[in-house]
């Protein structure tokens, strides 16, 4: 019996650990996670990163979607809300990348809400000196 209880507890622990809300830096901040590199934050070029703490209010990010023939530099401008998690991903939508508000529903899944297209995506030939492959 104790083995069964232990296995149930372990299962709950594993399942509970599946979906976790990212830690938001502090009040006045939001968080964004991206499946593709963020290369510019509010007009300032940065080293490619995949997650950021954002100050609430209007933010403009440039995120690069890579393909073998082209790179697509997609610009997102939106008002980030305090203590909110955002996510940028590719979902075969009209533009290569889409911005969502990410909400944990329960331990098993999160929800992607408030679909937002980039304001523009600029297509450039693929960089030949890229480390990516």
């Amino acid at each position, binding site marked *: 019996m104790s083995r069964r209880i232990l296995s149930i507890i372990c299962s709950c622990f594993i399942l509970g650990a599946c979906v976790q809300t990212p830690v938001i830096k502090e009040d006045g901040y939001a968080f964004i996670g991206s*499946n593709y590199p963020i290369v510019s934050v509010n007009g300032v070029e940065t080293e490619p990163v995949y997650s950021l703490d954002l100050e609430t209010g209007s933010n403009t990010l440039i995120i690069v979607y890579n393909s073998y023939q082209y790179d697509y530099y997609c610009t997102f401008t939106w008002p980030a809300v305090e203590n909110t998690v955002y996510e940028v991903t590719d979902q075969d939508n009209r533009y290569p990348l889409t911005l969502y508000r990410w909400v944990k529903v329960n331990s098993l899944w999160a929800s992607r809400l408030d679909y937002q297209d980039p304001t523009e995506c600029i297509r450039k030939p693929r960089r030949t000196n890229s480390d990516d492959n």
Partner: protein
Amino acid sequence: MKLPTFKNYLLVLTVNAFVTVTLNADPVPGLSELSDSIVRESAFAFVNTTTSPGLEGATLTLDDGNRQSDQWRSSLGFSAEFTIKNHIFNGYWGMAVVGGSLNDRSELTGDSGQPVQVDLTRDVVALRGSFGLSYPVTQHFKLRPYLSLSVSDLQTESIVDGLLATVPGGSAEATAVFNSSAQMLSTTGSVDALYSRWYGGNRLELSAHYHLIYTDAFSEDNPILETEAWNDVLQLKSRYSGPTRLTSIGRPWRWLLYANHSNFLSQDNLSLGYTSLFEFGVGMEWQMNIKPMDWFGWQMVGLKAGVITSSNVEGYFMGLTAR
């Protein structure tokens, strides 16, 4: 319940005993029209037309003069891409539980010239897992090579009616029943070429899918199925979808039209009575957009209904889809 008479019981026993002894030489004694290779190819064809990646549910009816059959297949599965950071290519995985059944009734000619009815029932349950990569060539076009492994359990019951019984003093026709099972391990190498483009809120998707399947079969009670086989399947798919004004729980619905063609390239027409299928249909998809395990996106669930056709084959599909 009517109990068999002693004479009938003896007939069945005799036929069954005879078959058991000579199974290695001939699938059905007195019915050489049913060769080993036909039995093998028929079994592989059924498994491949049920469990191959990319196939969705279907209910098919074949009527080809001396042959009538009913076949259905259904699957519960999911596949998705996942991002591999610092690489252009994405990962791809899928899992599915697949089931299907075939009832195939043929009228053949026995070795003595008498008509023989063969009533074949096959059932298969398979578990399939896929893993591969997805290469975006442009925003609109990607190539997706992947490997699938599937394990299938195939159960077959054959009822042969009209064999001449070899019992002393009798020439009555007899019914023989054969039961066999086989386990099949399939490795499938697939390449998908996927193209999509948006026109306002409408989306056009075109894709070609090629699957090369190697199957190793094991059977303790039917040596004919203790073998291996190579098969290949080509699928061409198209779909056109657009927005609707409908929403549920704040999420929109989209309508869709689709047309698919499946060609079982290496399959002999004798195996199942068909080698290709065309499917046309309509559907509705609900964009639920969740992220299970916070790992991969599950964009849509939908309802689809379509008709399936080919020479001598009519069928339909109605069911749930997810992607």
